[in-house]
């Protein structure tokens, strides 16, 4: 099985604060990997470093066999192959849903308008949002906005999706609709690297779970094993706290 994404020795500091202390991680094609770990453990930073929105200090990022951290690689071109969805949606408020989705395909991929719009509409239909295509983002619920953000990333036909706690900003009753979209993507074989606090969801969907603490991957493995019999005492402690908080 070929790796869709390989991270090697990723290091990242913000000033004196070393947030990623050498991350090695490989995601196979069609694999779903969940990153779990306490707030501040470096999950978001890792995802942002993966698509080079955040420059890294050391290490290599390889996407489908191409090292994108090599000098001379155009980062804008790389980002088109990596979809990323943030916790806070970040839809463009001055554009309709349709325009939000077609902007990057049309401007970055130079797709013609009709092709881009047809593709966008078919994606919206798939995720039950077709009737919302002419609305502005502030007229949508949080769950709808986040689903539009996912569609916007998918419209670039990425080879891998990075999801950063995409349900954390949502009211509890809206979480399910977003998670079901992600499940649907997993079923279709989308390669995904997902940072999440939803442990039940991670257990369901992940092929592999990585526990991150203080910028290191302390433990990884299939969800059944990580959640039932963690080897590392720190993983066990983290999961115990989650269970006490009633989130698993």
């Amino acid at each position: 099985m070929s790796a869709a994404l390989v991270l090697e020795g990723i290091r990242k500091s913000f000033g004196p604060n070393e947030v990623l202390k050498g991350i090695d991680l490989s995601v196979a094609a069609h694999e779903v990997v969940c990153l779990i770990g306490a707030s501040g453990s470096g999950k978001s930073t890792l995802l942002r470093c993966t698509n080079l929105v955040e420059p890294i200090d050391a290490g290599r990022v390889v996407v489908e066999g191409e090292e994108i951290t090599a000098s001379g690689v155009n980062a804008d071109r790389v980002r088109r192959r990596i979809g990323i969805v943030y916790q806070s949606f970040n839809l463009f408020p001055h554009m309709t849903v349709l325009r939000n989705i077609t902007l990057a395909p049309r401007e970055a991929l130079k797709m013609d308008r009709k092709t881009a719009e047809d593709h966008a509409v078919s994606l919206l239909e798939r995720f039950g949002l077709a009737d919302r295509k002419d609305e502005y983002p502030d007229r949508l619920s949080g769950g709808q906005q986040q689903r539009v953000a996912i569609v916007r990333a998918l419209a670039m036909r990425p080879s891998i999706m990075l999801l950063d706690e995409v349900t954390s900003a949502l009211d509890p009753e809206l979480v399910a609709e977003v998670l079901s979209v992600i499940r649907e993507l997993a079923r279709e074989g989308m390669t995904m690297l997902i940072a999440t606090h939803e442990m039940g969801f991670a257990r369901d969907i992940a092929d592999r779970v990585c526990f991150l603490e203080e910028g290191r991957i302390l433990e990884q493995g299939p969800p059944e094993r990580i959640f039932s019999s963690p080897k590392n005492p720190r993983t066990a402690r983290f999961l115990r706290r989650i269970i006490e908080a009633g989130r698993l």
Partner: protein
Amino acid sequence: MTTRGTGPADNLEPSPGRGSKVLGNRAVLVSSASTVLFFAAIALVVALAPGSGLVAERFFSPFHLWQSIRGTPGEPSVLGAFLLNVYIFAISEVFILVLALVIAVVRGIPGPVFFPLRLVAIVYTDVFRGVPLILILYIIGFGVPGLGIAYFSYLSDVTYGIIALVLVYSAYVAEVYRAGIESVHESQNAAARSLGLTRFQSLRFVVLPQAIRRVIPPLLNDFIGLQKDTALVSVLGSIEAARAAQIYGASQFNYASYVVAALLFVLITIPLARFTDRLIARDKRRRQAGGLA
């Protein structure tokens, strides 16, 4: 002032029963009465002041008001001259909007390589906001022709005036744009870049449209200032409304021409000012609606 008196009463918490209505009626009554009294008092003071007949003759003589509007064989029409103000305003405005945007964008380009460009933009805004407009007018209007440079030293007075206005006002407007650009949250740019858009595409499609929408009211405010400052171009010899009024006043010993020029400036300012108010009110409503959502 006095009509504002109704404001606080309207804003009071609606009290139950008839109480608030009685208060509302009384507020209207009080404000009407005080408005009438206020202006009656002013009229009385003006009418009784020594020399009030002279003021009426020198500033408000119907004959001179009308004659300065029309112009005479010896004196230019103030109204006709005002068209030059409108022309200067219209041309300057277009160039200012473009040049200021370039300056604001250049100032925001990140990276050490572009430090010299950023420095130029910073020095530019500092200099042209710091130096009085009239000095810039002298420097451009009298200095440049004296240099004997091909083409640039042989432009018309009006053109030099427009250049000076564009240079000065672009510095102000660039700062307005910059405030707008900085008010757009960085996460918008991050989202655009994450989709594979270039820095320029993100600026063009995502950041600037939001920034410009937010700064339209302060922008219009600057244009009200520009509209008045077109009068200063007359120091280079152009006969615009203020200068035409001066010519009339000096030869007829009557200042009704100044009143006419003043009224023309006010007349063109009012629609711009009301339009700005409406945009501000609309923005405020939007923000409140957004806050509730």
